[in-house]
């Protein structure tokens, strides 16, 4: 392999790897949107919270990673449940924008609470992943990124399968299609809402652990969620496959733009793609088009 090609391959792989991380985060958005039609911007902060919960369990209580990780994920789910019951359900029937802004406010509350609990200093998570470099032939792949890819490779198909075959997943899909009809079919719609929030927030918390392991944690790390939001808009707000493919595409494009144009072009390329995507396919590559009525 020529040097140039090798470099390109490595950059692309690294891009796909961080794209995988975006995909997992995007999944949290999609799950919640699919069931409840809420764009939950607080996913970003749940992500941050996941990192901190892991930090508290692993560094604070000295628990081993295999206990700390599930604890943090469950913690994220619990926060999701509380939030759904506490502030989202009373907003049922309000405009999408209002609920969106509620999640924005919620995000701010969570950041403040994290700052009060853990302080504002950035921190490093204890090492819990292998640090052995991975070489595919001559191609180097950062181990943490490889792990992110592996996790995405497991989690995304898992969600696809769950949606298709598991009862709860079917209920979720039914609710997504038509709330009233699902309700009249005896589906526990509020239950489905809670479930979606729990799974969504747990996913976000899991993504937060991965993210924290790579870049450390800080109350401001939720900004990452904005990039994931771009992914879901490009991929389609209600499409699991869209989250996967959107994440990989954005990850790849960011890596290539960052390498060949310069790091300052990463964000602007992402948002440029977003605008183009909105103009060409307003409901994303795989999203469902909403029909307007008079």
């Amino acid at each position: 392999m020529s040097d140039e090609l090798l470099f390109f391959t490595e950059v692309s792989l690294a891009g796909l790897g961080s794209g995988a991380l975006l995909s997992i985060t995007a999944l949290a958005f999609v799950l919640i949107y699919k069931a409840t039609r809420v764009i939950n911007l607080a996913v970003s902060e749940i992500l941050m919270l996941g990192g901190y919960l892991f930090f508290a369990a692993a560094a604070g209580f000295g628990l081993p990673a295999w206990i700390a990780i599930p604890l943090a994920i469950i913690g994220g789910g619990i926060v999701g449940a509380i939030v759904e019951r506490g502030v989202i359900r009373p907003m049922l029937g309000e405009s999408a924008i209002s609920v969106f802004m509620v999640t924005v406010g919620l995000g701010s509350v969570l950041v403040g609470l994290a700052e009060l609990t853990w302080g504002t200093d950035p921190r490093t998570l204890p090492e819990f992943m292998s640090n052995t470099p991975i070489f595919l032939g001559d191609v180097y792949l950062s181990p943490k990124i490889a792990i992110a890819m592996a996790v995405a490779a497991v989690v995304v198909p898992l969600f696809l399968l769950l949606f298709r075959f598991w009862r709860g997943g079917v209920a979720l899909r039914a609710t997504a299609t038509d709330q009233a009809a699902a309700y009249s079919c005896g589906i526990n719609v509020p239950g489905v809402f809670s479930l979606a929030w729990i799974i969504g927030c747990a996913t976000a918390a899991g993504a937060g652990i991965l993210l924290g392991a790579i870049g450390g944690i800080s109350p401001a790390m939720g900004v990452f969620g904005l990039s994931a939001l771009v992914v879901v808009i490009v991929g389609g707000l209600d499409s699991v496959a869209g989250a996967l493919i959107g994440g990989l595409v954005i990850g790849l494009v960011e890596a290539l733009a960052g390498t060949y144009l310069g790091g300052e072009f990463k964000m602007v390329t992402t948002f440029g793609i977003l605008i183009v995507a909105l103009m060409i396919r307003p409901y994303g590559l795989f999203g469902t088009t909403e029909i307007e009525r008079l």
Partner: protein
Amino acid sequence: MRIATAKQSYSSDEALLRTNTQWAWMGILALALLAAPFLLDGYWLYLACLVTINVASATGLNILTGFTGLVSLGQAAFMAVGAYTVAVLQRDVGTPFLFNLLAAGALTAIVGVLVGLPSLRVKGLYLAIATIAASFILHFVFVNWQSLTNGPSGISLEPATFFGAPLTSNFHLYWVFVPITALMVLGAANLFRTRIGRAFIAIRDRDISAEVLGIPLLRYKLLSFAISSFYAGIAGGMWAYFFRVVTPESFPFITSIFFLAAIIVGGMGTILGGIVGAVFMTLVPELLRFLVEWASPFVPNAGTLLSPVRTVVFGALIVGFLVFEPQGMAEIIQRIRRFFHLWPFRK
């Protein structure tokens, strides 16, 4: 209890202030605004100027989001465009203060129309996200168009002069900012007693029906973007004269959320809402400062709690108002007003 006043003519019934009580309140407000700079110390005068700028910007955002129903998270970026316009004009051209402000408004209006173009295809949250994208792209321009914006280090401004008088201190700026903002608020109030304002509200309430009733949607959405950005641009211009330095980091994304929060808390779709929201949201963090100061003898490290507490309160206000008082503070004020209208004959 006040008896409904008989109107002499339709034009008096179309006026903004229709009752003596309203005139009286307006008079009190005007007196307070006149007396304020003589009574306030440096700190409060600084806040008064900041509040004035924020009121102008929030009123602009309210036109777009509150009245037209187009959610924008790009208000900070629009203000930045205005601030940069003022800075560049002053540095390179040397045009006078008022001209610069108007130019800032005009240019920002054009940028606003461009940013509003996706409303051709998308609306609601998708549009909100498009405005986020636009603000990041604008930020990129501010950082990288070195020759114009001086890159990351930004532009410093000389103090403005207003008909020969230098506007150096907050005391001076107050006398210029308050009338400008008052005019802007008056303009917004006027707008909503004409066909254009009605068209905006119609688009917000039922956009498709509005079209059938003869309102070209895209044109009016873009017009709303233009007017709202015009306001943001002027507010940004005032901001530039106030702080006298403009950098890409002067208008972070959180500022956009701040303004959206201000109109949510104040009341979307009412002129009063934009005003009280901006005043309230600007002053709450400062009031928390006093709260923390007061608590410091009792709470260890109270000083380090201020910032997180502000973050929590900021979020909680957004959530709280949306859940419990979606119409905002303006509605609370109306309720109090109605109460006194009927007083002493309570329901």
